[in-house]
Structure formats: C-alpha cells, structure tokens
C-alpha cells in the first residue's frame, strides 16, 4: 500500500491553483474537467510521485468543519520544508499571511500560513 494522493479542500479551484503554483511553487500535474469542477492536482517540482488534489469544497457540513478549523488557527495539513525560516521570509515577500511565525518545538520548527482558499497550512522542518 502506498500513498500517491492527498488533498486539500478549497473554496475556489482556480484561485487555489494560482496560490499553490505562484506562491508555493508547486507545479500543475493533472487538470481534467468534471462538470462543474475538475480533477486538479499539483506536485512538488522536485518529485511528482505524490500529488496534492485541490479538491472543490461542495459539501455543506464540510464547510462548517473547515471554517471551525480555520478560525481556531489549526492547520488542515502540513508540508515539509528544508528550512522554515528561509521559506517564511520568501513567502512573506510574496504577500502570504502567517498566523504562526517560525517556532521551535524541540527537534521541529513550524509555521502556519493562510492559503487564501479556506485553510491554514503548516510548514514543518524536522
């Protein structure tokens, strides 16, 4: 068993694609129209083995869950980075908003930003 896909729920797929590619530096891999929405994935530029699905938020109860997480500042998911401080500076310059600045937690350093599509995303350096 292997993990090939994971997903984030987004309120607008086009806006999400723009943020995840232009701000975060991911690369679009799949874009297949499926009626109102599309099967849209991005991958890391270093490796396309694991895809991140930018999944449309179309289910009302899930919106409540997403909103509660967002308001509490809790990250929906986390991405690994080599250097949180460096990434933080670069993203700040691109206008990304952080709710948690780089913080050391023992062996881990983390920070949390707003993906502008309804989610907090954590970056982690281990």
């Amino acid at each position, binding site marked *: 068993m292997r993990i090939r896909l994971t997903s984030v729920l987004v309120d607008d797929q086009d806006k999400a694609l723009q943020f995840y590619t232009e701000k975060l530096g991911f690369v679009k891999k*799949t874009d*297949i129209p499926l009626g109102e929405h599309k099967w849209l994935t991005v991958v890391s530029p270093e490796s396309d083995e694991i895809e991140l699905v930018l999944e449309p938020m179309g289910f009302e109860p899930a919106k409540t869950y997403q909103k509660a997480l967002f308001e509490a500042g809790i990250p929906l998911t986390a991405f690994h980075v080599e250097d949180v401080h460096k990434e933080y500076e670069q993203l700040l310059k691109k206008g990304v908003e952080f709710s948690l600045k780089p913080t050391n*937690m023992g*062996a881990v350093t983390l920070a949390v930003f707003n993906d502008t599509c309804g989610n907090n995303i954590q970056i982690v350096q281990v």
Partner: protein
Amino acid sequence: MTYYHQHIIEIRKALYPNEYLYRQAVLAKLFIDKHYNHDINLDEISDKAFFSKFHFIRLFRSIYYKTPYQYLTSVRIEKAKLFLQSGKSISETCSLIGFRSITSFTSLFRKATGYTPANFVKKYRKLPELIPFPYNSLGYLQKNQSQKTAILKKTNSRVCSLNQ
C-alpha cells in the same frame, strides 16, 4: 492569537523549556545529515555544543531516540540503500557514505537490514523505466493508444531480454 497558537506555546513551555539546548541538538542532527559521508567527530560536535558529552548524547537520544553515533549509522545505511538501488557498485557505495572498509560496511549493512549489500542489490535494485505508468490517478489514459502500445512492446522486450 489563535487557539492553535496558544496551544503550541503551552506545549513548548511544558516540553521544551530550554530552547537553546534543543536547537543545538537539532543543529548537530542537521550537521550529520549533511556530512554523513565525511569523518564526523562526534566528540568535537558535543564539545562545541554542550558542557558534557554525556549530556549531549542523552539530549540527542531524548529527541531522536538514537545516540548521535546510532543516528549517523542509520543515515549512512539509508543512503547506502538508495545508492545500491540506483545502480552504484558496493565499493562505490561504501566510499560514498564515508566508509573506508568494505568489510565493516558489509557487516554493518547486514546487521541493519538483514541483507548483505550483494543480496540487497539482487532483491531491490530498481530496473530503469521498466514499467511506465501511462494512467493518471483517475484512470484516464494520459497517452494515446499508439503510444501506449509502443510502451508496452518496449517493456515486454526488456522483460524478455532480462529473463534470458
């Protein structure tokens, strides 16, 4: 301040009161990650970072569940597995991960993985581009039918030649 931020601060205060020491242990770990292929003097690292080697080892183990030496060995073995899988020879791999003796590398590798490097190669070496993946995650064809047929023919001929 968000609920999550508050929570992080509380955990940090309770579990990691001495940030400086933890930071030093993390830096030591990152140093090992980067220089695993060199002669790393762990005594020197601990001297620079802490008052005592014993304290350094204890702190390092409390974070990474391994002593610095055990951690260095595990990094070297993981790198060796990647090198062997990617087609490097055993002697090349031995040198690339900072070992001078093939005998001690072989012995350590067997202890860590259960395989000698040669047996590991037989079992796990990746065959380059043997089986392409013409489908995306939804199962749609990414390549047209003629491309797919060409790929499968190429794959089959490689498999045949490998079996001979």
